[in-house]
């Protein structure tokens, strides 16, 4: 039985898809009598079945070796496209994570979206979303993963644009789609190129391909860079990071998925592409640089946000930046571990934030305060989620960083400094949020704030427990799959100093955030210098305005210019030709006067011109002939 379930795990994406399709009658408004609830129940049921299936398969996979299921999809000319599914502890672990968080998020949505009139549409989209994510978790084919990433882009667009009547949502959905699309198109270029250079696009064969096909260094670098572009968009890395922040306008349950596992899906593909990045030092350097810039930039942006969701979403970019660095260094295991810890902790933080938002109908932290006694479960969830994200207490991220510095990898001082920076700023951000939301005196909007209903509380509490237990997962199960064996340099200086310094950075962050007078943590400062920096960070270093005046303005100018050329030059030329024809015709028609003298004159003139051109240059012959006659 278990074996059968394992072999049939490839149907897992179809659970979500089936849920989405089955709830269409409600979302299209064909069935109105029952209200939209049945659609939600169907989707939750399908996700639950998928979760159970994944759990059984995951328990069984440890006893058997990794397998691949290959489906031949399209064979045309010399191209053979296969869709491969990988059955390994890693892929099934990812599947378990995806279905688990999706299940919790959907139950949560039942409470959060309770009063929304298009609940059914929301659940349809969630089912579709989940199907694509599950597919990515299982996929062993770059081609399939690309397709699924695109479907994720579509469902992100539709989910962010769920409340499409609001102006901010309209731009947010558009930007989310287009930003990701930029990355995806470049990724597609890379896939087309790789396929042309003989790769068969299966992740597991990439390594042997990378070793056997010597590419020109420049080509290898370009291919590597183009493959990075897709995940850069998906994981909201600089310079394609702003969509995630804007996407916070969408419904929160989708935000839970987006910030925890959707961004991870992009990174997951990136990790699987790691063998290609070894082809060229340029691409691994690019990964490290992109990651570092994002880590520093978004960590700083996060601490200046006053929107609770945006503060958290910037921190998502920062942690995904660490994943990029880990992949760039070739440390695949660490990258997986980072994704795992971050996904769970961030999902919990978003659930907590959603609870606050629903209860207070407000996302602005400056208008909150004193919620801890009113919403204890939410407060605990926030604390546990924060602890999971910081290397401070012995929870998720602590063990991840510990693995990074336990001597199995060649780590450098700059990496430690960077991690300390992230840890400290993250600590500042989360402590600041906690203080502003949960501590202090209640304000207008937080005075009457009951704890959320059970549909939201149940997933939140469950995930709190899961986050507390999460550190056990990497200890208990062997997720290691690095292509090259760890180095083991236990005596390096950095190894000995790493953990104490990281903990110190976390403590320092908490202290700083606590020490700032409470009002000062959000108020716009009256000092010009401080205000300048505050605004700089709060407005994301003005990157969006920079894009407005460069890329957006450039494209629209080019479009207007081309349209102008099209209208007045290309088409104008055509119209000019026709005008000239009509004009000359119109002019010439006045020659039909009916006077025979005029016609004869025209004829004589015409014949003379003809003769002239015929005899041109040969007049001597004519004159000679006539003169010979005269003589």
């Amino acid at each position, binding site marked *: 039985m278990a074996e059968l379930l394992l072999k049939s795990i490839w149907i897992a994406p179809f659970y979500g898809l089936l849920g989405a399709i089955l709830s269409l009658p409600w979302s299209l408004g064909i069935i109105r009598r029952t209200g939209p609830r049945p659609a939600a129940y169907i989707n939750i049921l399908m996700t639950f079945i998928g979760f159970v299936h994944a759990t059984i398969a995951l328990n069984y996979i440890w006893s058997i070796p990794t397998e691949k299921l290959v489906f031949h999809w*399209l064979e045309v*000319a010399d191209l053979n496209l296969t869709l491969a599914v990988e059955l390994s502890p890693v892929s099934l672990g990812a599947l378990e994570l995806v279905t688990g968080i999706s299940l919790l998020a959907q139950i949560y949505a039942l409470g959060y979206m309770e009063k929304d009139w298009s609940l059914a549409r929301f659940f349809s989209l969630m089912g579709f979303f989940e199907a694509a994510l599950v597919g990515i978790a299982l996929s062993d084919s770059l081609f399939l993963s690309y*397709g699924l990433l695109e479907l994720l882009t579509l469902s992100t667009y*539709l989910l962010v644009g769920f409340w499409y*009547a609001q102006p901010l949502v309209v731009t947010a959905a558009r930007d989310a789609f287009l930003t990701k699309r930029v990355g995806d198109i470049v990724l597609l*270029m890379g896939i*087309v190129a790789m396929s*042309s250079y003989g790769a068969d696009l299966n992740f597991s064969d990439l390594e042997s391909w990378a070793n056997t096909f010597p590419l020109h260094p420049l080509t290898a670098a370009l291919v590597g860079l183009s493959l990075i572009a897709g995940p850069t968009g998906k994981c909201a890395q600089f310079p394609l990071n702003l969509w995630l922040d804007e996407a916070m306008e969408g419904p929160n349950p989708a935000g839970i998925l987006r910030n925890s596992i959707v961004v991870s899906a992009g990174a997951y593909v990136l990790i699987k592409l790691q063998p290609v990045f070894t082809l060229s030092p340029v691409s691994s350097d690019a990964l490290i640089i992109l990651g570092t810039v994002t880590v520093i930039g978004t960590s700083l942006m996060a601490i200046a946000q006053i929107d609770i969701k945006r503060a958290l979403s910037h921190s998502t970019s920062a942690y995904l930046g660490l994943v990029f660095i880990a992949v760039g260094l070739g440390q695949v295991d660490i990258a997986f571990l980072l994704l795992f810890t971050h996904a769970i902790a961030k999902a919990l933080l978003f659930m907590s934030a959603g609870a606050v938002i629903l209860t207070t109908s407000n996302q602005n932290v400056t208008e909150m305060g004193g919620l801890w006694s009113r919403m204890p479960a939410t407060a605990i969830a926030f604390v546990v989620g924060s602890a999971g994200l910081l290397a401070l207490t012995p929870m998720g991220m602590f063990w991840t960083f510990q693995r990074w510095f336990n001597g199995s990898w060649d780590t450098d001082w700059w990496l430690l400094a960077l991690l300390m920076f992230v840890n400290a700023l993250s600590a500042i951000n989360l402590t600041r949020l906690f203080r502003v939301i949960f501590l202090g005196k209640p304000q207008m909007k937080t005075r009457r704030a009951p704890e959320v209903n059970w549909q939201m509380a149940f997933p939140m509490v469950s995930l709190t427990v899961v986050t507390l237990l999460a550190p056990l997962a990497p200890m208990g199960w062997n997720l290691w799959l690095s292509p090259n064996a760890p180095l083991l340099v236990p005596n390096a200086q950095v190894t000995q100093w790493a953990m104490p310094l990281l903990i110190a950075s976390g403590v320092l962050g908490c202290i700083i955030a606590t020490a700032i007078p409470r009002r000062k943590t959000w108020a716009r400062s009256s000092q010009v210098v401080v205000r300048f920096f505050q605004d700089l960070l709060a407005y994301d270093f003005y990157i969006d305005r920079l894009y407005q005046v460069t890329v957006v303005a450039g494209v629209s100018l080019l479009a207007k210019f*081309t349209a102008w050329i099209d209208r007045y030059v290309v088409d104008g030329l055509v119209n000019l030709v026709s005008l000239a024809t009509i004009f000359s015709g119109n002019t010439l028609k006045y020659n039909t006067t009916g006077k025979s003298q005029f016609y004869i004159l025209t004829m004589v003139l015409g014949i003379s011109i003809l003769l002239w051109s015929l005899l041109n240059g040969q007049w001597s012959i004519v004159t000679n002939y006539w003169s010979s006659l005269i003589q």
Partner: protein
Amino acid sequence: MLSALILIPLVGAIVIGFFPDKEGKMSRNLAIFTALSVLVINIYLGWQFDTSVSGFQFSEYIPWLQWIGLNYSIGIDGLSFPLVCLNSLLTLIAIIVTDKSIARPRFYYSILLLLSCGAVGAFLAKDLLLFFLFYELEIVPLYFLIAIWGGKRRGYAAMKFLLYTAVSGILVLASFLGLVWLTGADSFAYEPLRSHTLSLTSQLLVIAPLLVGVFIKIPIFPFHTWLPDAHVEASTPISVLLAGVLLKLGTYGLLRFAVGLFLDAWVILAPWMAILAGISALYGASCAIAQKDMKKVVAYSSIAHMAYILLGVSATTRLSITASVFQMVSHGLISALLFLLVGVVYKKTGTRDVESLRGLLNPERGLPVTGGLMILGVMASSGLPGMVGFISEFLVFRGSFPIFPIPTLLCLVGTGLTAVYFLLVINKVFFGRLTQSLARLPQVKWVEHAPAFTLLFLIIAFGIQPSWVVHWSEVQAVALLTGS
């Protein structure tokens, strides 16, 4: 059997033309019946068609004007079969979506069938001169369809279309005459002419007018300006046919004659053609961004997407040629769907102006189903996996990249821009709050959406199972490149 595809619409057109019918109900039913029977015969032919052999099947031959070398000789092969199917499907859809209370119904349905007859004849012709005759035959009905049932500037648009396409026809004819004259062949039959032994210079001389002729028809920059005007002025069903079928005559001519007859010359010109395709794709895309009329956006996107076919044909690999045929089918389905939906919006709101429409997704008073279909159609056009647009474009790019990397990348950028211009339209027209002036829109019935759902079904089905289209033309693509 094959002649039935040409004869049935012709007979239908004549019968409708002579049948007294004031209200147009009878003409409509007759037209639907005719188109349906053509579709059924087409499906039957597909049943009988052998995809494993190359060359023409179901060939028919009747001697006609032998003293000028013209014979009625038709046949169908892997290149033309998908297009003939597309034609019969879209003709049926065009008739169904026609307004029931259209003016002069007999004339309308009659020449609509004649248009379809011309297109199918051109796809089936095995004789160069016969192809030309059908190619010209299709122009006249289309001229009337735009000039009589078109929009405000229909006279201008129809005349522009007529002049452009007539020039295109003359150039194609000049090339055919030149070929026969230079080779000294005694007829215009296609297959014998393929084994000609013209020198490269003469081949280049003869192919040049042919290329300009088909570029006008496809259309490729800078010969495209008739298309946006024609689309904007034409009514919805005519736009569907124009984009879905008639443009394909150009790309079909390119494949069948430019590649099929002058392979040596084509290979020499191909690098330039690939660059032209890249330019055309980017040009169409950036023009589309600046448009305010929804129909113009779709029209310019047609220009961009047809350019991919030129790219695929330029590369002349087995994959790229097969993919080009696939892209023709895919573009036919997708652009037809988009024109249908824009037509619905226009019919219900009375405008296509992007600036004055807003919030049409509103579930109670807007056009939610149209909006949902439009989002899917737009996604199909911008190459979302799971739909036919993605895989056809992917195959074109994959087939062309090894030969022409830079033009392929240019076209890929064009694909990226597709999302930009269509998303701008979607965001402005369907998202946001419904404007008060549009607050009382007439409801769209489910039946009215049946054609759009059919197209969407095909788009998704072929996107998931592309071999259903690809396997028709795979063998013939090889035969086209290896000579007869």
